């Protein structure tokens, strides 16, 4: 199981939990599991999210491996200037 | 739009008088072309005066200087005679725009654009300069302060245009100075400004003074009360303070994107005091 931290304003869609556990082993399977277990997150996931895995921010890279002891943080899509 | 470049003042004033639509004089063009590009004015005729004899001359006359209407800021700044006699007028003229604008802009253009914030106008008013005007009825002279009437409007009649500015002779210990406030160090239009011209006697007492303010009224303000506060004094702190408060009282500024009423009143007083001190130093150094 992988522990995923969601940011403050999404916690209303994860029954108030800051950290949720999902069954996943890649970037994409984390998002698919989140969508299945917490449908309230679907609009945000579809609008685009990044995942910070062990301090590195990944943008939509489906096959990035995720292990049970990875720190996984859901983050908004990155934009720059 | 028609463009004409007559070779005599008579021809120029005839063209201007006979033009049915809006007509503009082109000397430096650094205001006119900006206004044309922004669509603020669409002249039917532009009369370029740079080919008229004398327009680009700086000549000594009656102890003072006659400066042609097409003399640029850069050219005037390089004239040792005028710079020595009227440092305040020259420094005011040289504050207009950038180095590039200085290569083109003229005092007559700055005057006739009639912007309350025109940099050379307060200094010229303090210097009691006189504009020479050519028109259908011939030539006349007029104090520069009487030409701007309101923002963008002058007292010139149809067919009239300024052909030169005369800076009078400078008696004994005299000095002038001009300061303006801008938020940067260059490239801005004065938020407010002050020009001071004064004469000292042999023991440093101010015997004559003119204090003028820019950008604090529809046209340049000549503040007699401020001048009187200096006359008879050695410009001690009390005199300077009185001069400053007279300026703040006389100023009737507006609040706009460049400054507030309160700021312009306060700072025009500060500038008048500082300009007076510079004029005093310059006067002290002259005999």
């Amino acid at each position, binding site marked *: 199981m992988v522990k995923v*931290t969601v*940011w*403050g*304003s999404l916690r*209303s869609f994860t029954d108030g939990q*800051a950290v949720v556990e999902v069954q996943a082993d890649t970037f994409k399977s984390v998002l698919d599991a989140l969508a299945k277990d917490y449908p309230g997150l679907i*609009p945000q996931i579809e609008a685009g999210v990044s995942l*910070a895995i*062990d*301090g*590195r*921010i*990944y*943008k*939509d*890279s489906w*096959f*990035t491996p995720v292990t049970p002891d990875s*720190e996984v*943080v*859901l*983050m*908004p*899509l*990155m*934009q*720059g*200037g | 739009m028609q463009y004409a470049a007559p070779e005599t003042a008579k021809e120029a004033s005839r063209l201007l008088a006979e033009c049915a639509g809006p007509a503009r004089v082109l000397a430096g063009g650094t205001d006119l072309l900006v206004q044309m590009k*922004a669509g603020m004015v669409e002249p039917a005729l532009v009369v370029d005066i740079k080919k008229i004899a004398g327009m680009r001359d700086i000549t000594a006359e009656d102890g003072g200087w006659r400066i042609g209407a097409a003399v640029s800021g850069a050219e005037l700044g390089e004239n040792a005679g005028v710079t020595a006699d009227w440092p305040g007028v020259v420094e005011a003229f040289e504050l207009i725009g950038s180095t590039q604008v200085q290569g083109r802009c003229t005092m007559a253009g700055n005057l006739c654009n009639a912007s309350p914030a025109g940099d050379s106008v307060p200094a010229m008013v303090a210097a009691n300069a006189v504009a020479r005007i050519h028109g259908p009825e011939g030539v006349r002279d007029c104090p520069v302060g009487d030409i701007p009437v309101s923002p963008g409007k002058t007292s010139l009649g149809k067919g009239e245009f300024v052909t030169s500015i005369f800076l009078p002779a400078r008696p004994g210990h005299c000095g002038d100075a001009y300061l303006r*406030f801008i*938020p*940067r*160090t*260059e*490239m*801005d*239009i004065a*938020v407010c400004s002050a020009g001071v011209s004064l004469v000292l006697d042999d023991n440093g007492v101010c015997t004559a003074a003119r204090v003028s303010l820019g950008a604090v009224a529809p046209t340049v303000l000549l503040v007699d009360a401020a001048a009187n506060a200096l006359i008879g004094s050695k410009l001690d702190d009390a005199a300077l303070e009185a001069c400053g408060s007279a300026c703040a009282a006389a100023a009737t500024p507006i609040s706009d*994107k*460049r*400054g*507030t009423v*309160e*700021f312009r009143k*306060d*700072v025009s007083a*500060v500038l008048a005091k500082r300009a007076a001190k510079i004029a005093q130093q310059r006067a002290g150094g002259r005999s």
Partner: protein
Amino acid sequence: MAFDEYQKRDFKVIGTTPLRPDGIDKVTGRAQYGADYYLPGMLVGKMLRSPYAHAKIKSIDTSAARAMQGVKAVVTADDFPGTATGETLDVQDHCLARGTALYDGHAVAAVAAIDAETARQALKLIKVDYEVLPHVTSIEDAVKPGAPLVQEGRRGRKVPKQFSDNCTGWCEFGHGDLEAGFAKADKIIERTFKTSSTHQGYIEPHACLASMGSDGRADVWCCTQGHFHVRNLCAQIMDMDQSALRVTASEIGGGFGGKTTVFIEPVALLLSLKAGHPVKVVMSRDEVFKASGPTVASMTDVKIGMTKDGRITAADALIRYEGGAWPNLTIFPGAQSAFACYDLEAVRAQGLNALTNRPLQAAYRAPGAPQSIYAVEAVVDELALELGLDPIDVRLKNAAKKGTKSSYGPTYDDIGLVQLLEAAKAHPHYSAPLGPNQGRGISSGFWFNFGGETCVSLALDFDGSITLVEGNPDIGGSRASMSMMAAEELGIPYEKVRTIVADTASLGHNEVTHGSRVTFAVGLATIKAARAAKTEMCRRAAKIWGIDEDAVVWEDGFAKPAGPNAGEYEPMSIEKIAKDSPRTGGPIVGHHEVTAEGAGVSFGVHICDLEVDPETGFTKILRYTVLQDAGKAIHPQYVEGQLQGGAVQGIGWALNEEYIYGEDGRLQNAGFLDYRIPVASDLPKIDTVILEIPNPGHPYGVRGVGETGIVPPLAAISNAMSHAIGVRMQELPMSPPKVLKAIKNKG
């Protein structure tokens, strides 16, 4: 996907300062920028723009304009295919109003004519029937319930009740127990800060030349930070296949985030299609200020608790951004970066985005970070002052470092903030004496940086020189940096590599030049492409020598036999391999395509000294020092350039730059006279200190440096001002009227 681990090495080319390949053209005037393209039969396109901040367009009568001699096409939004949806439809509407004019200067129609004068006259013949509606341009008004509504149906899902329907976005980041944290504090300060909208201020107005045929194929030449993005946006708006549209990026006259989208390209394409001729559209400076993408304005409440000895116990912020008549996402990075410089047990950053009757905000160098970090750094500075502590010591005591859980979620890896703060404290500037009316301020700053889609092709020409083809417009010298990385990797001189920026028909998609990503991501791809070429060159040498491929290594521009049974062979030069390549299998090209990940964050610390004239409120910057972590400075001069340029933009933002709207919602200062960017005589030298804490995610340790430089100046200057005049300034810009008023009110 293996991570591109950083390996320590001593560099031969990296770290030197060669001349940029685009230099000669730029100093001789030959370089072609957006407005420097001409085509046979070219027409001039111009937009008719709304004089109202908010007005319904009841009707547009273009008949007189169409009938005018020399006019070849007149279009409105109805002429678009109408297939764009979602964010792309917002972009299209921003380019050409659809039913409603939403900001002063919003284009409502466009003409193409044989010359500029005819186009100008034709615009005057277009009659638009406007129904003026109530407008709102300030953040304070836009969020209040009952505020004039900019657009229907845009309220954000999570926006709390107390905010108006103009509010499209709400987010919250942070962790820990705020209440418990504030309870432990000896001193709590809570303040509200405001910043005005500013513009990127690039000197080159937007310009493009579009040529579209009735067969649906088209070409666009334009100044842009991302021509692939321009292509994809225009293709969606014009209902074309992406491959049917080729976009060529001209040299770009500055962008800073403001040229990362489209404002005129779709309209130029539409005009070209209707007129059957190429159409050139060039914005005037007035149009750039009114109708491109200035920054968000902000209003931020910050509350921070601190113990007597300077430890932050809790930090909370409510950050409100307004950024134009369509939703934008700048509030997300804004809220995330607010407390990113700090190691906090209890932190919360709430962010809100509101619509206003202003153009759609585009990014401006670390979008969102300057405004929120300004407010935080100002409160930290005030707390240090109140508690009698040194501002750098307080920041050191709370600085984020390796292992810190960031305020936006992930735990930091190797980061350089502590080293930067220590370097700032040790810098002679920090201890230099100050005179009367003078003040010193410091601030830290942060930006994410990121990777994104990148494609590079590296061809070995037959004489052994290299043509490197990449797809990211180069503003700050990145072509030189790419040539340097290729030369380093191949072991050949810098001069042997020519880097060019190719059009969208020559490479796979490349993410826009933004997010300080180019040196990182395109550099990464360049190194991988060079390695691919090396592998192939070693393979060719092995075949020529008849030995095993794995027994050949690449060193300093030569293939060399290596390993126990490799045998004795003369090292084979790159020139030889190149010359023989037609006969050993064909031309050799290394290429690499990737969505690059692993961009490291970049921190900065700035020190600013200034002097205030107490009688006029005039502020002069006396001394300025920028310290920033570059991971590895590929071309040190260009890194310095980013630091100096960012700092000066920050100085303008703090002192004099702002969008000034009248009561009528119209922009009052749409020009460089009254939108005051710093000029040469305003400034001292900008001293720079580059630290190199390698980014583990890049082979050479590179971190992006392009954006962080603009973040610290806002607070550094505001803090310096507050010490100089003894009054805490809480609004930007600190223009002289506001400064003088603050001094007078101090009593």
